[in-house]
């Protein structure tokens, strides 16, 4: 009945027995955040009585606003402790695996996700998201980078330059994120930052929430020019970094290099030698 703890000198991440994340503590500032994470999916629209518009490559159009649980079975949990990294792996199936990694002295928690191929036996397909729900009071606002450089303020059901009529409450609020997205609690002066390894869509549809599109597999052409369904049959392996920190200039300048590190990883090259390990260098 014990909780699972991943802890280093800077971060404490608390998980329940099923490996669901519960909180992240920043040991430097002493502040903590309640956070849950779920894998959900939207049902892609395949047309209604009112419109023949389907969800596809150009158009993200879910049926309704409900996001369904992507994994209904209980995952197998593996926890490992080591001198460099502690891990917690949640295994639902070969098509859905999540691993949390906390490296020694690292100020962030990393999550590695294996998603897909998405099951299409229902004949509809799925648009799979990862949703974080936190205890932050975010005032209907979130931020994401528009081009990998400049952070843009996003407000739900609002555009700064025209009066928005909300037609689709989910996809109408999805915006691009290239590397960085975050939500802030201005009163507590804390921030939950998510660094992605690829461009995605993201939205904050409710207070304290932020969700990211992970993988889409739709079975109908959206009639916008592609001419075929976006039947993505691939498996993706993606890495996301989670940072909980204070709102300060120092903190803001800190995650930018981390985002750069994700998109410009260290590059190993291999050779062979018959020399000893001490002689070759």
């Amino acid at each position, binding site marked *: 009945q014990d909780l699972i703890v991943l802890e280093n000198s800077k971060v404490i991440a608390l998980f329940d027995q099923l490996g669901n994340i519960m909180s992240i503590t920043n040991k430097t500032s002493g502040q903590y955040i309640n956070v849950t994470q779920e894998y959900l999916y939207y049902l892609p629209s395949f047309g209604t009585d009112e419109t023949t518009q389907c969800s596809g*490559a*150009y158009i993200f159009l879910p049926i309704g606003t409900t996001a369904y649980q992507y994994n209904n079975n209980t995952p197998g949990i593996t926890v*490992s402790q*080591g*001198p*460099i*990294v502690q*891990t917690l*792996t949640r295994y639902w199936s070969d098509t859905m695996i999540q691993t949390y990694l906390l*490296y*020694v*002295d690292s100020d962030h928690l990393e999550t590695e996700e294996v998603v897909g191929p998405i099951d299409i036996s229902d004949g509809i397909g799925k648009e799979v998201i990862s949703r974080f729900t936190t205890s932050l009071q975010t005032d209907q606002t979130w931020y994401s980078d528009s081009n990998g450089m400049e952070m843009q303020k996003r407000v739900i059901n609002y555009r700064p330059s025209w009066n928005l009529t909300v037609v689709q409450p989910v996809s109408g609020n999805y915006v691009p994120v290239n590397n960085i997205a975050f939500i802030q609690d201005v009163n507590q002066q804390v921030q939950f930052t998510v660094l992605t390894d690829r461009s995605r869509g993201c939205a904050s549809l409710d207070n304290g929430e932020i969700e990211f599109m992970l993988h889409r597999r739709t079975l109908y052409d959206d009639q*916008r*020019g*592609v*001419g*075929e369904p*976006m*039947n993505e049959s691939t498996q993706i*392996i993606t*890495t996301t970094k989670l940072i909980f920190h204070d709102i300060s200039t120092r903190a803001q300048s800190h995650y930018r*290099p981390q985002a*750069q*590190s994700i998109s*410009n990883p*260290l*590059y*190993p*090259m*291999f*050779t*062979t*030698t*018959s*020399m*000893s*390990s*001490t002689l*070759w*260098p």
Partner: protein
Amino acid sequence: QDIMVMRQAMGVLQHHDAVSGTEQQHVADDYAERLSIGNTATLQTMNQLVGQLLQKGKTAAPEFTFCPLLNESICPSTNPLSSGSSVPVVIYNSLSWTRYEQVKIPIPLVNVQVTNSSGQVIPSQILSYSSNTSILVFYVMVPPLGYSSFVIAPASNDDEDATKLENKYYSKPVK
């Protein structure tokens, strides 16, 4: 000139449907092929460059191999470990600041040790995802736009256990 093919592929992939993912599947396959051909040419250039940097006197420049899909579970370049050979690894930092980060490399066995360029065994750890998949993790410090080299070698049970080394190698974050 060798990497022009990659520059051309990158130019083609500025097309809006490649950026947004709104191309047909056969076009996506074509983009992937162009990138793959460009990538291979670029790796060959890196092979020549790093080989010449490591060439000593009149000895032949070492040949390098690559595992461009390191987020997968098998890296053929580390297979010589299973036959007892050491595998030197040179790590390139494409950013303009010193980086102190972990690297993860798939290896075919679970008992190895990592030596840095000073000949010291450094802490490392094995992550086992399954019975036939092991990932070696260790911290590296790499200078801006530069290289660091390490040697991964099969270890016997008598070797110094890297997991018990002091934490001194990763106790100094880079400013």
